[in-house]
């Protein structure tokens, strides 16, 4: 019995592995717990987490600023994460081709939660749920920043610098 459980566990593991490798651009599906892990990080890490969708024009427009930020601050323990909130049915048909076509350098993940009420307020009660929305979590000084609406590169950089200031 135990053996069988282990075997099926292994099978499941292998299966999930092959499913994720099918998603060629490494767009991982994440659950809300992953967001909270970034938010509550106590390591030196700095997470810049942006919520976007392929259909959201202001989001798409500001994406290059996030890639530039990641590059400009490569010496910091900074990770830019672009969280797609597209519909699940559009992951393969829209999100993956988009990530490939735009050659997005930053980490792209897919929000695999059904009900946004499970994470919006927990990330920040000030977030109404409108996108684009950007969070910065700085583990070292425990500071966070939040902005709803689009950002220029300059605004994004200022927000980062303010947040990581000791």
């Amino acid at each position, binding site marked *: 019995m135990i053996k069988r459980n282990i075997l099926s566990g292994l099978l499941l593991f292998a299966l999930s592995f092959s499913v994720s490798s099918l998603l060629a651009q490494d767009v991982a599906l994440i659950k809300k717990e992953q967001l909270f892990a970034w938010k509550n990080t106590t390591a030196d890490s700095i997470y810049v987490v942006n919520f976007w969708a392929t259909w959201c024009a202001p989001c798409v427009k500001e994406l290059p600023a996030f890639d530039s930020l990641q590059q400009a601050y490569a010496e910091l323990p900074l990770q830019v994460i672009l969280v797609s909130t597209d519909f699940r049915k559009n992951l393969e048909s829209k999100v993956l081709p988009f990530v490939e076509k735009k050659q997005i350098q930053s980490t792209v993940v897919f929000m695999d939660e059904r*009900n*946004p*009420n499970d994470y919006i307020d927990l990330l920040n009660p000030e977030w*109404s749920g409108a996108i684009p929305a950007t969070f910065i979590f700085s583990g070292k000084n425990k500071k966070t920043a939040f902005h709803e609406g689009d950002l220029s590169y300059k605004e994004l950089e200022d927000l980062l610098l303010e947040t990581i200031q000791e």
Partner: protein
Amino acid sequence: MYKKLLLLGFLIAGLGMAFTTTNEPTGYAVGDTAKDFKLKNVDGKMVSLKSMKKAKGYIVVFTCNHCPYALAYQDRIIELHNKYAELGYPVVAINPNDKDRSPGDSFDKMQERAKEKDYPFVYLYDEKQDVARSFGATRTPHVYILDKNMKVQYIGAIDDNSESAEDASEKYVENAVDALIKGESVAVTQTKAIGCTIKWKK
């Protein structure tokens, strides 16, 4: 001199903080009394809430033509009206988007959509964006349920699954209106959803 500079530094830092943490006026909260408004409907007539004589309350939905989340909810909004208008709670749909920033949301396009989908409810154009501002709407779709005294009873999402109506397990708006009809208080008065930002005039 040094002290003054330091003070200035503090001031600037404070100002910066103020800019990043202050939000625009937040509009109505649950329990507030909404102000009536008058907006142009797709049929060209001006509509106010008070002009809807049979209403015992209102399901005010800030929505628009182009947003995929608004589109996903389009049929559900029609169903809400068909179910609740005769019970005294009509849908009042309002498009607050600036037509220059979102050409798909112009008044002409609203008329087209209303005709195409045979909207049974009024679809109003908030051209000056005053109504969206006074309510504090930020995204589409964004629902405000008002009772007969214009008191805000619910703010938030239509249900808990924007992608698929069948998979929604919590029908927030229906639950709220059902409660009001029965004379009960609304259990869940506030929810959130991912949505498109309202396209404010620049």
